[in-house]
Structure formats: C-alpha cells, structure tokens
C-alpha cells in the first residue's frame, strides 16, 4: 500500500494545533500553579506558594459569579492541574482524539464564560494565566480563535486516525 505523505496540510494543521494548544494549556497550568509566587524550597514554603497561587486563582474564578463557593474551590484546585496534564498529553500526541475532544470542550466552555462576562460588562480579570489580565474584547477574540483551532484540530485528528500513519510499516502484499 502507498504511504500518505507525512507533510500534507492536514498534518501540518494538526501539528500546529497540538503545539499551540498543548503549549498554551501546559503553560496556563504551570503559571497558575507556580506563579506569581515561585518559592520552591523548603517544602513548606513551596506548599504555601502553591496554595497561595491557587487561592488567588480561586478569587478569579469566583469573580465570574457563576459558581457556588465549594464549586469555585473545586475548580480552582483541579483546573490548573487538568490544564497542565491535558497540555502535556496533547504535546505527546498519545490518544489524540480523546484529549483533543476534551480540550475542545474546555475551550468552548472558556469561550462561553468570557463572552458572558464581556457582554455583562464585568470589570474583572480573565484568570487565563497568573498575570492579572483585564477581560476585554481581545480576550474573547483570542479564546474564540483558540476554540476554533481546537475544533479544527479535533476534526482533523479523527480524520487522521482513519488514514495509515506515515511512519507505519507498509502492508505486505
């Protein structure tokens, strides 16, 4: 059987999507966990740094006024780690369809939340990364672009899965 070219447009978009979204997700997770406070040693100081960073992120989640306090706490203490893991999985490329679908759902969720806050003229920080960043129209546009990229990447990941892998061994005749 003929191998498909490893350098076609579909694979290029898939690679770009993986690198961009995986990189952004991993970076967002790391930044929420380790910034703005990056005291790494001794252990009790590291723990305090991470707790403080997550508490600060919880404040940002709460500012959207959508969730009850226990859910805010749950989201603030799980989302950064989920972002980090999903970002890494996307970069690694293992079981791409599953993680790409999950990231697409999360991106669409983020897009919905920031659009709602923007339309309600909420004067809040976006909470996307560790740096306080006011939520503006640009935030909505950026999230929209990333969500679109995630959707395209997921669709292409499903199409790609049906094709033979370029590195796979040719079938014996």
């Amino acid at each position, binding site marked *: 059987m003929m191998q498909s070219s490893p350098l076609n447009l579909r694979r290029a978009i898939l690679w770009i999507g993986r*690198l961009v979204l995986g*990189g952004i997700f*991993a*970076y967002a997770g*790391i*930044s929420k966990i*380790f*910034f*703005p*406070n*990056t*005291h*790494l*040693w001794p252990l*009790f*100081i590291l*723990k*305090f*740094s991470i*707790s*403080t*960073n997550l*508490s*600060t992120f*919880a*404040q940002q989640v709460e*500012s959207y006024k959508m969730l009850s306090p226990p859910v805010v706490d749950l989201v603030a203490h799980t989302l950064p780690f989920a972002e980090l893991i999903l970002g*890494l999985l996307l*970069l*690694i*490329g*293992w079981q791409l369809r599953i993680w790409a679908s999950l990231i697409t759902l999360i991106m669409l969720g983020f897009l919905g939340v920031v659009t709602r806050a923007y339309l309600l003229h909420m004067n809040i920080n976006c909470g996307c*990364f*560790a*740096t*306080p960043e*006011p939520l503006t129209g640009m935030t909505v546009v950026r999230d929209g672009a990333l969500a679109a990229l995630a959707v395209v990447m997921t669709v292409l990941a499903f199409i790609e899965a049906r094709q033979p*892998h370029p*590195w*796979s061994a040719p079938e014996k005749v």
Partner: protein
Amino acid sequence: MNRRRILAGTVSVVFLGLVALFLPSLHKTAEPAAPTMQPVAQPPTETAATRAESEPPSIPAPVVEAKVAALPPAPQSAALPDVDPHKTFGSRNAPVTMETFSDYQCPACKTLFMTTNRRLMDDYVSTGKVYLIHRDFPLAMHAHSRVAARYARAAAQIGKVEAVEQSLFQNQEKWEQSGDVDGTVAAVLSPAEMAKVRALVKGGTLDSLIDKDFALGQTYRVNQTPTTIFHCKGQTFPYSGVMTYDTLKTFLDQLLSQK
C-alpha cells in the same frame, strides 16, 4: 515508531516546563524580578532627621519607635522604613513581621481582610507572634482607592482605623459604584470624629504618606494587591495574592519553628 513520537513530545514538554519555570519575568507586568528564596534587598531606612523634615507637623511622632529603640536586641521590624505606628498591629518585637500592601477597592484585598486577617489578628497578632503593618498601595485602575486610603489614614490618626477599614471593605461594592467614601466612613464614626477625619483629609498631608508606602511597594516590586511581605529571621518572602487562613497558619507555624 510510537516511541519516537512519545520521546519527542516528552522532550518538548520538559523544555517548555523549564522555559516556563525559569522565565518568571514573563509573568511580571512591572519590573522583571521574581521573588526568590533569597532575602530581598531591604529598602533604605530613612534617618530620623529626614523623616522629621518630610513628615507633616500634624502627624504625631512614632511613639512606639522611640520606646522600642531602648529595647535590646533590635526587633525584626526595626529596619523597616516609614512605619506609621497608627497603621500597625501587634508587638514590634514579634518574631515575624508581615507588611501587607493593600488597596481598599480591590476585591481580593477585601477577601483577605474579611477572612484571613481577622483570625490572624486573634491568633497571631494579639499573642505577640506577628507584627502586622498595613501599607497603602492604591492602584491607578481603581478610581476611588486613593480617596479611601486618605480616609483610612485620617481615621488611623484618631485611632479609628479598625472600624473604618472594616466599613470600607464591607461596603466596597457600594462606594465603588457611588464613590461615596465619605458617607461610608461617616456611618461608623461619631460626628466629632468625622469632623476630625474630614479636616485631616482636606489638610492634604496624607498623600505624602500614601506615596511613601507606594514607593516602598515599588522597591519590593509589588505589582498586584494584596501583596504580603513576610520578614522572619533576616529573610524576606514576598507573597502576592490571597491566602486562606489555614494555609497561612501552617506557614506561620513552620516559619516560627524554623531554626
């Protein structure tokens, strides 16, 4: 071949992680310097003479400083500049000093004040373990925070800082919308006290004190509120953001037990 892909992915992930961890300047909106475990350079301490020149005559001299000057050994807080004794809580000889740079219009500062600081006062400040210094850091993005800082400073001069801070934080959403800081403060003071506060605010002498706090914050590279600077055993740890009481308690207990 899957192994090759996994290896390539893992290498890029590790590389990305290292970049993210070792380039903290990406996260700073002001001066690019991440807080580290190394003690931060202490801001220069003003001499008594320069302080006397720069401070307005209506503000009482720092009585606590004069008293503590005779006490050996020098407390942790002795080297800290521009400490307004009206905006400090606890004993200057406490083993841990906490300087909190705060903005009355900032929601996170409200959370810190309403939740963590109340219990901190009861358990650590009033028991002599922590010396708490409130520093004003009114952010330009908040329209009324400097006015609120003026009123709180004025209230501090007449010994009413706790009631006024409580009222300002508790009613933050109201005066943030209306801009009625005066009314918010008046609600918790007697007419005579309010008259004194208004006179101090109109006197225009409080801005220089607020500016001093702000300038000090900039030397610590504070770029968001609340930021708390912990001083303990010659080390300085800057922390940005909200901290829950339980995590703060664990941290303080371990900081206090550190040899």
